[in-house]
């Protein structure tokens, strides 16, 4: 009998579905040169390759946080069934368990050994003083925090640097080695080629970003065992833990929304462009109407209505986790419903052009069914638009989550997200001395995620948009098509 019970939340299903779709796409793309070519171009862009390791790290954290289960305790005597705890945990929770259980009473600054505000402390001799109490976990191994702390942090950092140096060398050797094998060079030859700038992939920048990432995370984890590297929040939870947990929420909103949106946008867009006439009129009317409602208001209206439903049907949602998860799923769905119109409009226009092409006319003349024409001849030729829009939308959605949570129509307050972090930290800005660390942590991680997503999206757009001609040094090449794609993404 398993010591745990796997739990599949709604958003976990979306995540798994998404992973399945990506794997299917990768398998297909590997077999077709014309599908591989643009991705090779992405791999050649410096910005994209600097961003890729960072994004991969975020994706890995988000994935680990999507594998949920309930811990079980072995059956007691006389019972046969396992008993499962009420908490729904994820694999990430286990990996960073120390962060989850190292809970303080209230605020404490990063690396603090004492609480942020005075409390009444009872001395061993029975007298009472108002002072800053020692933290239960933050720096609790230090005998004399005042003198020992700096040296202790330094020692731990040094060890972390050592570990990341070893990891870094291993990763670098692996990457350069793989590259050398692919180009049929010796290891030294590959190094020489890199030094001379004779490489077709930006390996150097990619390695630098990977090494920085490894060092940062090793340092954070080395210190987070005994300190609160980003401090603690109002109820004493470690902010680093909250930040790690927020990553999944951001990723789910950024990706699952697309999963919801694509079927609408692709089907309706192609149908409108292909059949024209009445079908086109109806679909155009639908998306013009939807897109004329300001997004945030439509989302607010829908989320309010969902709240009414959840409050009047409390029996469906048996735990806080499920309730929060349902709300996140619903948020993805409603964000998807409000954001398919831009891509739909784009696909309609492209299909209108494609349906006049000779190969489509030929297929029609041969009596190929409309469904097959759409699937075999139109869809593959508009797919680059789908990819570009998907990637460009991601960062906007991550940013939108924070705004929606502030407005009160975002994720459930019980769910960790950058929005809820900013929201609760904002209320503490008036404190003296100021509580800045939750904001700083949310700021840093959000900036890292959104910036790398933006860089990667630019690389993907440049690679997939056929209207962009290759940019070479020397005379500037006209880059038409950048704006329409961007505009479409913005409109959406």
């Amino acid at each position: 009998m398993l010591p745990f019970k796997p739990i599949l939340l709604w958003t976990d299903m979306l995540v798994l579905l998404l992973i399945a779709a990506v794997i299917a796409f990768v398998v297909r793309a590997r077999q077709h040169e014309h599908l591989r070519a643009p991705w090779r171009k992405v791999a050649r862009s410096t910005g994209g390759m600097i961003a890729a390791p960072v994004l991969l790290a975020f994706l890995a954290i988000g994935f680990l946080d999507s594998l949920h289960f309930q811990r079980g305790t072995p059956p007691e005597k006389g019972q046969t069934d396992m008993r499962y705890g009420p908490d729904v945990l994820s694999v990430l929770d286990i990996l960073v368990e120390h962060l989850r259980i190292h809970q303080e009473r209230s605020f404490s600054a990063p690396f603090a050994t004492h609480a942020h505000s005075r409390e009444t402390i009872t001395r061993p001799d029975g007298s009472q003083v108002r002072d800053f109490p020692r933290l239960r976990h933050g720096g609790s191994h230090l005998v004399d925090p005042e003198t020992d702390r700096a040296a202790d942090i330094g020692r731990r950092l040094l060890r972390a640097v050592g570990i990341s140096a070893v990891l870094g060398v291993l990763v670098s050797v692996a990457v350069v080695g793989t590259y050398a094998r692919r180009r049929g060079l010796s290891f030294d030859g590959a190094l020489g080629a890199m030094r001379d700038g004779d490489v077709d992939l930006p390996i150097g920048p990619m390695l630098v970003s990977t090494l920085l990432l490894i060092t940062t995370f090793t340092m954070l984890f080395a210190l987070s065992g005994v300190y609160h590297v980003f401090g603690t929040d109002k109820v004493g939870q470690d902010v680093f833990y909250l930040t790690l947990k927020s990553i999944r929420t951001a990723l789910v909103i950024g990706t699952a929304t697309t999963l919801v949106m694509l079927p609408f946008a692709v089907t309706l867009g192609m149908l409108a462009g292909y059949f024209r006439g009445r079908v086109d009129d109806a679909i155009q009317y639908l998306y013009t109407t939807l897109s004329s409602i300001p997004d945030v208001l439509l989302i607010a209206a829908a989320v309010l209505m969902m709240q009414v439903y959840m409050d009047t049907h409390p029996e469906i949602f048996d735990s806080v986790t499920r309730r929060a998860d349902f709300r996140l799923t619903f948020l993805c769905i409603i964000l998807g419903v409000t954001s398919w119109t831009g891509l739909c409009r784009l696909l309609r226009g492209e299909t209108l052009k494609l349906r006049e092409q000779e190969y489509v006319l030929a297929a029609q003349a041969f009596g190929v069914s409309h469904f097959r024409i759409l699937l075999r001849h139109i869809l593959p030729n508009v797919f680059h638009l789908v990819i570009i829009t998907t990637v460009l939308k991601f960062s906007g959605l991550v940013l939108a989550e924070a705004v929606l949570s502030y407005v009160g129509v975002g994720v459930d307050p019980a769910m960790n997200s950058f929005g809820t972090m900013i929201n609760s930290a904002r209320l503490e800005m008036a404190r003296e001395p100021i509580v800045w660390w939750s904001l700083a942590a949310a700021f840093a991680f959000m900036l890292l995620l959104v910036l790398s997503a933006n860089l990667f999206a630019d690389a993907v757009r440049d690679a997939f948009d056929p209207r962009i001609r290759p940019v070479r040094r020397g005379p500037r090449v006209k880059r038409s098509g950048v704006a329409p794609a961007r505009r479409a993404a913005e409109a959406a």
Partner: protein
Amino acid sequence: MLRYIIRRILYAIPILIGVNLITFFLFFIVNTPDDMARMQLGVKRVTPEAIERWKAERGYDRPVAWNAAEQGMAKLTNTIFFDHSVRLFAFDFGAAESDGRDIGHEISTRMWPSLAIALPVFVVGLLAYVSFALLLVFFRATALDTAGVVMCVIAMSISGMFYIIGGQYVVSKLWNLVPISGFGDGLSAWRFLVLPVVVGLAHGLGESGRWYRTIFLEEINRDYVRTARAKGLRESRVLFRHVLRNGLIPILTGVVVAIPSLFIGSLVTESFFGIPGLGSYTIEAINSQDFAVVRSMVFLGSLLYIIGLILTDISYTLADPRIRFD
């Protein structure tokens, strides 16, 4: 031109009807008025009488779309659908559910503070971003250009809320230049408006600056630019006269597309800065679950967006005399 505008306005009517139907569906079909009453009055201890009273006070106790008990036109008009959806077309928004105040009156007083922020951000922003983009284009393919683009990409990766929080902290708290939040009557309000406007401008710089730069770079290799240079015009004149005017069309499209998101921005900005505008009105309504106000704002927001689209088309003809709508 006039015929075209009239036609566009006629097109807008079915769209507004659609918006109306969507909101009606969301607010009255997905959940019944009973659900809303229970929500407002507290789910646990609520008597059927209290629900009936709540519904009667707000006119939700009538049939949804067809009142068979009435005579003549009243069969249609004495219904929830007519009173709460159709009346919106006459700008008769009814009373707020939470405090019973007239929504139309609230909107007409609260739109001025909203405009006082959105308008300067819009106008100054357009000028500033276009100038910034032209400056980058002037120095294209130099280190300055690269630095500008990198700065733009970083700036657009920062959530708008951090601009507000950072601005309030630095300008109001550390430097003590303007109040953190609040609003005043008449001209004395300027002290409260400076910071929101500056923050709004800073927030838009990254995204718009980079986008406009791309648009201008598209124009810079066209034949007419080469001709202008060949006849000996200075680069600044080429940029500010020829390139600017031709780049204006895509910019105009984008500027109007951004109008609904201006609305988002003002939602957050107004509530952070305590400005009594439409944005903070909406946030208050969402927090107090005042469905009547949210419904009215959805309708008003869509109406403004559609007007914006019509205005874009008109602005095309002003920016580019080649475009005719006949």
